[in-house]
């Protein structure tokens, strides 16, 4: 059964980063999100996404190293959010 948090995160990625040619459902869950040549996202995209995540889920990411670990993939991001915001779905 599709994970609603994962689906929501994928939609947020497309919306926040303004990816015109990418469909949310095509974003892989377990592949690297950044430095991935298929998606073409980089560390600035990651930070922009962090800004949206902090607002949306009320979480806080303290530094760039924590950001890099949390956003390694959509799956790790979902796990990161759930660990800090158990009500997130």
């Amino acid at each position, binding site marked *: 059964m599709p994970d609603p948090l994962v689906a929501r995160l994928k939609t947020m990625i497309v919306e926040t980063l303004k990816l015109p040619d990418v469909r949310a459902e095509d974003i892989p869950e377990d592949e690297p999100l950044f430095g991935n040549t298929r998606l073409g996202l*980089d*560390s*600035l995209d990651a*930070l922009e996404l*962090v*800004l949206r995540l902090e607002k949306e889920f009320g979480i806080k*990411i*303290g*530094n*760039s*190293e*924590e*950001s890099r670990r949390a956003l390694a993939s959509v799956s790790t991001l979902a796990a990161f959010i759930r660990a800090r915001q158990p009500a997130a779905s």
Partner: protein
Amino acid sequence: MTANADAAAAGVEALDCLTPFGDAAATAAALLAGRRALAPHPVLGPDGGDPVPLALIGGAMDEPVTPRWLAPARELARRIPAGDWGSAREPVVVTSSNFGVGAMHAFTRDRDARHLAHGTPFAAAARLGRELGWGEHVHVLSHACVTAHLGLALAGRLLHRGFANRVLVFSFDFVSPFVAAGFHSLKILNAAMPAPFAARDSGSIGLGDGAAFAVLAAAPAPLRLEAAALHNEMHHFTSNRPDGAGFTACAVAMAAAARGRRVWIKGHGTGTLEAGRLEAEAWRQAFPDAPLVSWKGSLGHTLGSCGLVELAVAAAALRAGRIPGTVGGEAPSFTANVALGPLAAAGFDAAVLSANAFGGAHASFILAHD
């Protein structure tokens, strides 16, 4: 890939800076005593926000209609030798990363249009010029954290190609919520105090207010700027080539220019991890015996003015006979060449002073002295 170094030397006729510790001599003394100018301040200033390390002249990051950098700039400028500054033969080069951009944010807060009168780089430089009585020949340079180095290099070229008799390089960068919030959003201006070149789990920078000036002339002087090297990676806005080639480009050029001299290195060392590691390694490889220091763990990163502020501090340290170590640094460092404690100046012939910036810009020069 190696940067080509401008070989012509420029004599330093006068040089000083202003930091939260005071002038260059007071700043060098404070660094030698291991003091930190950085302290926690709310990132949005009067609007609060997360605490981040800032080193502020005057202690508060507000943005009144009269910009808070104007009075310190005036105070510093009293020490500039008399000259026809801003004339064709004695031009001014103003360098800053932010100029008056904090005023733009101040306008959005209180809607006082007077802030906008000095919000752009040229308007801030013009305001400064009117305040200090400069003529029209004021070059305005802005390239983030290598700006002061660029200003000094441009001044050297103006002198050696006969376009000027003397050049005043004036540099200033004062922190504002505009700037602090930006670096905080990049997740590099965090709660922790910076520890330049420290092999930690996470990095953080501090930001600081700074202003400085140098008067350069073509004639030799006891203090000289030599062999400026510049390079631009153009790899990414906020990260460097992972192989360190950008750092190596200037380091190798400096090593060639400094051959035969015993040098110490004043690095960039803001407290970020990846860039700090690449920088330390590049200097270690190019100068295996040279100690590497950074003062941003105390003064914070004074952004576009850092190259000239730290040059003034270096000169003051040489006069005092002792060079401050990496204040705020901690063991273990990325590489063995990082000097945490002070150094005796007598052991060296020259210094390499270096800065790096967004976009993978790198700038270095040799500070030679009699």
